[in-house]
């Protein structure tokens, strides 16, 4: 479980996150939804330590993640997998080497073991025979899938996905959604997903946090969204209805 308490974050005096508190549970897909510019990405980057908040607390299964040394942060980070909005694949490395990277960095597995795991991860995201291609030679959807494969390479305890299906066609989107939901349950991962794709939210969310103007405005599960009387949330849902 990941716990956030009273997170405040600003850039050059402009406050972006206001007193955000939230909890994300193990084995569940927790969604963070909200309008563009609301602060979802900043919140996620703060959670994984890429941004440092002015105040607040972040806990990973009871372990403080803020007030610890860089070297200690690295240990918790090795349990984190993250899918970036643009994939963030290493463009000097082939697909295979991208996925193998965390294994080569943090394990002493043999070459064969690494390749076996790479192929397992690729199969898991429905990709085959792309091992030797480079990121510049594969499509956006494939990049995202390779990004997921790399994120799950070392069986993370925590998985963060920033807009996993923005810019993808509906079929690939659903495929990626299903994939994330499956591995979350299968490996009992604490998964946090940023999204404004309401179809994903209604399909696969276990818990939803609605971020509005930098505040955690509403919290509940998908069955409560339709009946909510929170005006801002209702407006947001209405606007995204198709």
């Amino acid at each position, binding site marked *: 479980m990941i716990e956030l308490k009273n997170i405040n974050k600003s850039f050059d005096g402009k406050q972006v996150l206001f007193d955000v508190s939230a909890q994300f549970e193990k084995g569940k897909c927790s969604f963070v939804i909200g309008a563009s510019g609301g602060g979802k990405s900043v919140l996620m980057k703060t959670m994984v330590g890429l941004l440092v908040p002015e105040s607040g607390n972040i806990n990973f299964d009871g372990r403080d993640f803020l007030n610890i040394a860089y070297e200690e942060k*690295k240990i918790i980070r090795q349990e984190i997998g993250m899918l*970036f909005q*643009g994939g963030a694949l*290493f*463009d000097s490395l082939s697909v295979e080497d991208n996925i193998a990277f965390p294994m080569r960095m943090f394990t002493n597995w043999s070459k064969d073991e690494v390749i076996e795991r790479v192929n397992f991860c690729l199969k898991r995201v429905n990709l085959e025979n792309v091992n030797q291609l480079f990121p510049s030679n594969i499509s956006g959807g494939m990049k995202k899938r390779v990004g997921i494969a790399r994120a799950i390479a070392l069986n993370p305890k925590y998985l963060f996905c920033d807009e996993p299906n923005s810019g993808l066609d509906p079929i690939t989107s659903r495929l990626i959604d299903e994939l994330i939901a499956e591995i979350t349950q299968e490996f009992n991962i604490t998964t946090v997903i940023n999204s404004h794709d309401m179809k994903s939210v209604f399909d696969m969310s276990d818990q939803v946090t609605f971020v509005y103007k930098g505040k955690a405005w509403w919290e509940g599960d998908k069955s409560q969204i339709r009946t909510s009387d929170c005006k801002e949330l209702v407006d947001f849902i209405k606007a995204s209805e198709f």
Partner: protein
Amino acid sequence: MKYLNTFGEYLLFLKLSIGRPEKFKMFRELFVRDLYKMGNDSFGIVSIISIFIGAVAAIQIGYQLVGSLVPMYVLGRIVRDSNILEFSPTVTALVMAGKIGGNIASEIGTMKVSEQIDALEIMGVNSAKHVVLPKLAASVIAIPALVIYSMFLSNLGGIISVNFSGIVSVSGYIQGLLMDFDGFSITYALTKAFTFSFLITTISAVHGYKTEGGALEVGWASTRAVVQSCIAIIFFDFILTQIMLYK
């Protein structure tokens, strides 16, 4: 105040990026790749520039000696020392600032804006060390090696131009070239080369690492890296010369 801040940032960056590699096998792979790229990419340009600089130096210094009381065979000696002491290390470093420095800044800058650096951090990798250390190790080998190579070629350039211009006989020139050779000039030149390689790599890496935005900003970072590396080279050239030649 702004400059002090920037300098502080630079020192913090050095502290973060210099140290024992986290995974030696990974480091070695990157190091070999960078070393090959730096050496291979720069071979041609260093060759051309060195030969021409040596050739021009011989003609110009020869021109100044004509009619003076200094015997002409000294020409070889003066040109040799100018090449070894100043032209080869400094000019090679300036050219490398443009090539290797620009390259490092844009490579790291691209990794930064496309979130590859963030991806490394998330995995629990010290991204500064992972990216910079192999490049630093490669450049402190590649650049001094290129400087030594440039010393030979610039003196070869001198011989060629003497041969064509006939200011002095080639045998007379070579006699001067081999006269009163002091090994300290090599120590001095290589000290400069090591210092310059360190400056080029770290300054360029910092600029790459600080890049925010997109492709446009990567271009700016690369330009800033080259300009500041060049200034640092000239400045340290002056300091080191003061310290080492006038003991």
